């Protein structure tokens, strides 16, 4: 099929296949006969049977479609772009990240910031790595550009939190879940100013 056929929008020039729905009744007698035909056809009872069959299957064959969401979850596609994972080399336990900075460069919402230094072995290591999830649009460019497969998109899609600062630090989001106790407070995107306490004025209790 060529593109031309899709571009032709002149109604009536295409080859349509019409469904055989018959002709609507014209006279009163025809309408009456149609009603009689439909009334004695028993299609309403077919409908009743369909839902009853569904109910019996649901009750006795355990054919339920409900997923009790917080307790059980549907498997998620490996291509899903949720909260990032920073992967670790299984053999040595080192981070795969080599600190090249490509993800920081390519990020179109400027939400990745990283800092690197040379450790005692003159090996480059990442001293600070942050993704501000208040700004991240989950485009996936960072995971795509990473030469070492260090930063990838993980399957964690439940990213609600009591404070927006909770999702920004390397230690919070980009490490395995068993290291969550290392979580530190972070004044993230949109946090109040450090001197917010000083700006608050006392209000009198009695006017």
């Amino acid at each position, binding site marked *: 099929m060529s593109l031309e056929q899709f571009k032709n929008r002149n109604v009536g020039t295409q080859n349509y296949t019409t469904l055989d729905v018959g002709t609507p009744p014209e006279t009163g007698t025809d309408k009456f006969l149609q009603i009689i035909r439909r009334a004695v056809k028993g299609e*309403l009872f077919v*409908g*009743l049977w369909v*839902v*009853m069959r*569904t*109910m019996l299957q649901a009750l006795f064959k355990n*054919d339920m*479609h*409900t997923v009790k969401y917080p307790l059980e979850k549907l498997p998620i596609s490996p291509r899903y772009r949720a909260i990032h994972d920073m992967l670790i080399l299984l053999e040595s336990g080192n981070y795969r990240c080599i600190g090249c900075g490509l993800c920081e460069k390519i990020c179109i919402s400027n939400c990745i910031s990283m800092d690197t230094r040379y450790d005692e072995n003159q090996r480059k290591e990442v001293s600070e790595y942050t993704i501000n999830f208040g700004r991240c649009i989950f485009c996936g460019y960072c995971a795509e550009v990473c030469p070492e497969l260090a930063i990838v998109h993980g399957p964690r899609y439940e990213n609600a939190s009591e404070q927006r600062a909770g999702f920004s630090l390397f230690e919070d989001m980009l490490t395995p879940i068993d290291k969550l106790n290392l979580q530190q407070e972070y004044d993230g995107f949109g946090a109040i100013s450090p001197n917010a306490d000083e700006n608050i004025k006392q209000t009198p209790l009695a006017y």
Partner: protein
Amino acid sequence: METTLVENLPQVTAAGVIIKAVLILAIISALAGFGTFIERKVLAFMQRRLGPMHVGPYGLLQIAADGIKLFTKEDIVPQHANALIFKIAPIITAATAFIALAAVPVFPDFTVPEFIPLLGGTFVPSIASDLNIGVLFVLGMMAAGLYGPLLAGMAQANKWGILGAARTAVQFLSYEVVTGLSILAPIMIVGSLSFVDFNDYQTAGIGSWMIWQQPVAFVLFLIAGFAETNRTPFDLLEHEAEVVSGYATEYSGMRWGMFFIGEYANMITISVIAAIVFLGGYDAASTFGWLTIMLKIAFFFFLMLWVRAAWPHVRPDQLMWLCWKVLMPLALLNILITALVLLG
């Protein structure tokens, strides 16, 4: 008006009737709440869902949660609404639903045990008031119940409410004719308007049930009963997809809950009438007579939920067309044939 059932039973006193009225009010209100739970469960199963599951075992305490919610919700009367009528309307619906139940036999009769102080020995009848015009009274009360949605829709200063009220009038005018005419043929056969006489007419086993003599009247009455209780093929009054919530749009909290209780009480009433008039009613002689009528009522209640899961609803013009051009002529024809057979 003496009936055969009442003859050899103890004297019905005012105390017994009051106890009966309180019992009906308490049990039917609770059943109406339980009916919402059953409805949600049945609809869920028919759509392969679980329904309410988290409050109590299998979600049974969902009724309590809903009740607490309804009672503690803010009671809002809209700014331009006619406040008096707005407040009266839900009471009309709930009250007429329960008044209709006064002339319907519900639950078996019993005598209060002697050890209970004050009321010991009081005979509580199965029917709060065995009127000799029971059928007319019940149908009339259920028809009067339609003033609830009608006044509610017009009083609340809301266009959806007005549409709901207009649809109430349309539906009211259409089905009420069919309800009366369809039940007229069984009345002609039995020759009485008392539900007890209907029951006594059909005591000779399944073969004597009215449904075999009057299948057309049974179907017509069921259709009209669905319309009377606003159940799904005819739920025009508050169809969410079209008129938001119809007459109940502006209602909240327990005022809305009273509409609901009235609707479910009406469903139970229609089920009881259908069970007594067409399906043999209760067998007063046997021990399990009351169990059989409970099963019949439960079947009709289930049928309403079943139909709601299966069928789409009709448009208002289709409802009028159906009632006036199909059902009413059929009912008249049925009466005519019944009369000819009775005369001949």
